[in-house]
């Protein structure tokens, strides 16, 4: 008799045991509110130009504009495009050439079409006294959309005039601060 009662007793007990456990007072919809907001500091490009880079000794002619191009493939990566809310660029020039410079940054997409442009004027320095010019550029909104379709940048440095005896260096250091907001993507 005892055995007959025990089977259902145990069965019910086990059932209660398993069924009564639950997850309470929780709200998993909050997962949609999870936002990661990392702020990433990353070096960008740098160069060190000599004054004589602006003069062609072989042909005895000025080279008033020198330019170079590099790919920056990470910019148009999907992770960047979806999550980047703001980018802040810092360009730090150290100039010991006694000339002002115009420095342009033309961003291009993969079809080499221009997307985003920025540029600045660099103050002249002297060989004895290197002058630092800092230029910051904040990019957000529509400009950011343009920027994040870019995968390369053309840097052009223009000097008003030069000659065989011009001395000094123009150095650039640069970095970008990327402000991300990473959240669940809409399906």
């Amino acid at each position, binding site marked *: 008799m005892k055995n007959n009662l025990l089977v259902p007793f145990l069965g019910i007990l*086990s059932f209660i045991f398993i069924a*009564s456990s639950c*997850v309470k007072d*929780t709200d998993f919809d909050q997962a949609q509110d999870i*936002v990661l907001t990392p702020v*990433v500091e*990353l070096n*960008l490009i740098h160069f060190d130009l000599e004054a004589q880079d602006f003069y*062609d000794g072989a042909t005895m002619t000025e080279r008033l504009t020198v330019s170079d191009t590099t*790919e920056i493939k990470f910019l148009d990566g999907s992770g960047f495009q979806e999550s980047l809310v703001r980018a802040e660029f810092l360009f730090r020039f150290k100039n010991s050439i006694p000339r002002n410079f115009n420095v342009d940054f033309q961003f291009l997409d993969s079809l080499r079409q221009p997307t985003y442009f920025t540029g600045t004027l660099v103050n002249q320095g002297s060989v004895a006294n290197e002058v630092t010019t800092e230029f910051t550029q904040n990019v957000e909104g529509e400009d950011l959309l343009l920027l994040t379709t870019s995968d390369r940048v053309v840097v052009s440095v223009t000097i008003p005039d030069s000659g065989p005896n011009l001395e000094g260096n123009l150095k650039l250091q640069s970095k970008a601060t990327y402000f991300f907001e990473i959240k669940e993507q809409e399906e």
Partner: protein
Amino acid sequence: MKYLIFIFMAFLFCSAFAQNKQVLYGLEEVPQSLLLNPGVNVPQKSHFGIPLFSQFHINAGMTGVSVFDIFGESSVDINTRIRNKIFELEASDFFSATQQLEIINFGWRARNEIYFSGGVYEELDFIVYFPKDLAVLAYEGNQDYIGVPFDLGQISTTGDLMTVFHFGANKQLSEKLTMGVRAKLYSSLFSFKSTNNEGTFITREGNEDSENVYEHTVENLDASVQTSGIASLGDTGGASQILGSAFFGGNVGVGLDVGATYKVTEKITTSASILDLGVIFHTKDVESYRASGTYTLDGIELLFPPITQGEPTFPYYEDLEDEFEREIPIDTLNSGYTQLRPVKLNASVSYTFGRRIGSSGVCDCLNMGDDVKRNQAVGLQFYGISRPKGLQMAGTFYYYRRLWDVLSAKVTYTVDPYSNDNVGLGLVADLGKLNFYIAADNLLRYGNLAKANNVSLQLGINIKIENE
């Protein structure tokens, strides 16, 4: 994200301290206690587990954080709670999960009084430590951490899925001493391991001589991942291949369990066991990756080569990628490796009291002390398991009572890395030849599993034939 939460919850729902079956240990009414101590006292004459139903064990746990901590209804923003938890958790915190399913289990007492037992079970075992520095880096970025090193060596994880074939022998050697051994053959379906990693990542402010604003440096990196049974999964077969390797198609290993029970006095008994003292030899389908080196990223240096219009300049970006791969090469190795199984230790001391059982109530005077059983016991148990970052331990106090001839219960109180208020309960019913058991812990959290750091459950049915 939702799927991740679901999987995470599924683990938590169904399931202590991974692999610590403190409720079942020493519970001789359950034949599966032989798997926790091959030297346990075996009262029955023979047993046979109902195939696939003789033991189901699942266990998942996380130290330092519960589901409720993150997803509980609260006026505090979920992101604030996540951030606080990331900073509160340590690199020694971990998430671990173990699941076992017994396929076959049987045992019988031979004429020489040796109790032989054997069987097959499947085991899934996973642990991952919380890589705190990387979590902070991912969550916050490096802006507020210029000059602060991030430890990449905190990455530590192992995972295994295997079939275990075992056979053991148990014998009462004297009135006081029972000993047992069990040989195990492991057939690994898949295995991965990334432990003993080293290295730091640091972003420093550049100085006068620096080429750029910052120096992003990966220093003294030495990180590796060993895998077996995984590399070929993508190629062919998939599920059928995994099933194939469940039965000796994969990598094999050998192991040993040993254990003993010693009756100090009539009422005091001690026992101890060492489980899974073994190795798996990974020789087939092995793929290991190792990344090592030091590299500083300065950014892209433009050289302004004197080129005419339309001519391509240097491939700076590719050069940078190549440079990185050269300085921090990732080697792929196919050489085999030997994996130690996580060794488990159990020990206990118990004191029995209460009325005598096991006799018919009439004169028990012929029983000269070797088999006096009482209906109640209290005891202490110790459990330890070797893990990538050292031994993890747990201590249990228990109370055992035989309620009726057919029903026994054991209540446990366990202190382990997960919590210090873990109460467990096990019930064993012997209904004729049918042996039914269920054991679960963290009962104080059962009302709301979301608040539990870990939960474990074992249940099963056996056919047990008692001694005449």
